């Protein structure tokens, strides 16, 4: 059933990485992404790889799940690597008509490929160990200082969390509507893109109507339960840093310090 499919790709396990405060993980992931762009030679990957491997082992997420995360970007990865292979000028190693591979191209392609893979690994690590809810909470808390400049942090977090709740419901409903129209002989599978887009109208319109109705109902139900924005609201499960988060931040600081110092003194 569609409702059972969780959004995102949370991997349920009880590890110390799972238990970290979502803010720690969000900040960590952001810094990790920045760090990937701080060096230009392969030796930098050694540091990143080691640091990441440590987290991976602690998280108890199987490595094959990391590989699975690569699947959606496989094409992008391939194009990036091949473009670099063929389009970089330098010492020619192999040539066939206008296609040539250079030493610099090979190096650059491999470098870009590994960087992209590590980038995906890092963000997957966050989504595998943090539920969408925790992510929303973390973002709300991290963005809340921006309230001073009237940035609606609470409202955005509330919208995200409602979206998370209703996406599976609407997905299931779309499937039911599709079936109801197919039962009336609607043909959704054949024809060109325009014909198929037109064939989606009988599904799209009822879905839209239903989404509006749900939104209206939900707004009323929220009002009836005294919702009036983020003002004066308390939290049932407020985010609280624990000692593990301190260790996490220290680990992160050491990691960043290593990368930056290597960059400055070793020119990697």
């Amino acid at each position, binding site marked *: *059933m569609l*409702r*059972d*499919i969780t959004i995102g790709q949370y991997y349920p396990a009880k590890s110390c990485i799972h238990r970290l405060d979502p803010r720690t993980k969000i900040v960590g992931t952001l810094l990790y992404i920045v760090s990937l762009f701080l060096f230009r030679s392969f030796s930098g990957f050694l540091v990143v790889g080691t640091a990441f491997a440590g987290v991976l082992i602690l998280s108890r997420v199987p490595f094959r799940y990391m590989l699975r995360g690569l699947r959606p970007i496989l094409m992008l990865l391939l194009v990036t690597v091949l473009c670099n292979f063929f389009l970089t000028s330098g010492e020619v190693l192999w040539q066939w008509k206008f296609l040539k591979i250079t030493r610099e191209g090979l190096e650059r392609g491999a470098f870009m490929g590994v960087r992209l893979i590590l980038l995906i690994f890092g963000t997957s690590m966050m989504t595998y160990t943090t539920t*969408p*809810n925790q992510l929303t909470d973390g973002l709300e808390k991290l963005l809340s200082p921006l309230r001073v400049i009237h940035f609606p942090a609470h409202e955005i977090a509330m919208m995200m*969390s*409602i979206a*998370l*709740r209703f996406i*599976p*419901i609407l997905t299931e*409903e779309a499937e*039911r*509507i599709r*079936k*109801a*129209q*197919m*039962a*009336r*002989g*609607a*043909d959704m599978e054949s024809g060109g893109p325009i014909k198929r887009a037109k064939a989606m*109208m*009988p599904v799209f*319109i*009822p879905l839209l*109507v*239903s989404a509006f*109705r*749900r939104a209206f*109902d*939900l707004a*009323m*139900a*929220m*009002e*009836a*339960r*005294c*919702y*009036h924005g983020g003002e*004066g*609201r*308390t*939290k*049932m*499960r*407020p985010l609280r840093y624990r000692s593990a988060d301190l260790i996490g931040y220290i680990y992160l600081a050491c990691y960043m310090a290593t990368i930056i110092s290597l960059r400055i003194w070793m020119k990697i």
Partner: protein
Amino acid sequence: MEPVRITGLVHDYVTRDEEGNNTETKRALDHVELNVEEGQFIAVLGANGSGKSTLAKHINALLLPTQGRVLTCDMDTADDRYLWEIRKSAGMVFQNPDNQIVATVVEEDVGFGPENLGIPTEEIVQRVTDSLAAVGMTKYGESSPNRLSGGQKQRVAIAGILAMEPKCILMDEPTAMLDPIGRREVLETVHRLNREKGITVILITHYMEEVIDADRIFVMDAGRIAMQGTPREVFTRIGDLQELRLEVPQVTELAHLLSERGIPMPPSVLTPEEFVTAYKEVAGNTEATARTNVVGLLENEPPKAVGRPNADVSAAGSPDTEAEAPVLSMRDVRFVYGVGTAFETVALEDVNLDIFQGEYIGLIGHTGSGKSTLIQLLNGLERATAGTVRYLGEDIFGEGFNRRQLRSNVGLVFQYPDHQLFEATVIGDVSFGPKNQGLSAEEIRERAEWALTLTGVSQDRWQSSPLELSGGQKRRVAIAGVLAMKPKVIILDEPTAGLDPAGRDEILGEIDRIRRETGMTVILVSHRMEDVARFADRLVVISDGRIVFADPPRDVFHHREKLTSIGLEVPQVTQVMQMLSAEGIPCREDAITVEEALDGFGVAGA
């Protein structure tokens, strides 16, 4: 404190055009007077559109009076200062379980109200724990609401209200979208809260069975309170209730009809047990008072098979139909959801079923029993994991079988009409099916008009938008949309869900008439035994993915214990007849309608 005091309440819904001019005023509430005492269990009854939901929204200050005054827990709803205090004191549970749950985890949803009220964290946790315990949902605290049944979701919604520590709970048709098990769960929960915690309950519904335990009933009609009193006082006025598109429990109706025919039954019988006690007393008294008609009745054998209103029922399994080839047949069908994933579930197992031309099949089972899957297998929307489904002898997943053609021969009307209505006009929408069949413009129009006439949609509605119609009208248009393809078999999934009693009877009557006029095979999916008992030739009872019975209703109802064990109930009148007969009182034990039961007492038509 007085939970609710309403004086002279008027509410107008005003439609405005783009310039803000008042184009239409609809009076939804018309001088309503209503008082509720603390700790009472109040029921507000009324047909669809009678104004009962509007009334509830006033008590919760979701709407403000056009005229008059509403005091909720002694606070005027028109006074802004009290707004949050009112909503906290009179919590509201809505009809659609999905559309009122905000969070993705049960616990967090229950905590939503207190969070909004700014309650300190530790206290929220305590309130959430207590509220979940009070509705019996403790072990689902960390579940996703999406995995709960409708009844469970409504209990979560009630817990969400309880966590705000209300004095009063308002429930706006909380059971309309639930199956019988879910309904029972929800009602037992609110009754317990009312009894044990002294919380005032205001239940809005059109199911009469739900209100027999209420302290006081208000019946609404066209924005006014048309009747009020205790259930006994209100239910004796059967004629008036029927005029307001409502009904009374079958036993009450039977007792009433008996007393009209000279058997002195008390007029306010509300439960089967009361009926049996009262009838025994009446029968016992007869010797003393020597009322000949009753004595005569008791001495006579009950007229068993005489004058069965639906005598053609017996044709279902008789030799002449067996010789005929079935329209649809399922052999050793098994269906598994999500094969190869962590969520693999067996939905159907070992299903063998033959359906013959012209039959009226009632398909009964709970949510999750597999009945929706079964009907989708019949028109090829789903493919069986194992086994075969045949239409007129041909395997519907065989080589070269045209499944789109099949879908116009085996029409399927889904439960929610809103899921299929999408065109700008009613007639345009009904034309969608025939258009897909590739008919000429002339034929399409003819078919659409024929179908709309057959389902009783009046001509002046044909050009209006389907979204503007009432629930019952939408349902008719949805059915017409499938009928217009002229199917040989029509499958209807819960066609009466959410309709008031009169609307329900109208739709069922309509379906029966269509079947008689066209000779179509009808498969009606329902979880209301009373709905299918009256018309169906055969009942197919399904539980946990297996077919338990596939026999004429009378035969199925013999197995009351088995039905109870899978959470289904025989019609109330059948239950009473079986109870009487167990006490040795002669009556028609196999009666499945009130008319048959009357007939069994030998007083029909008297």
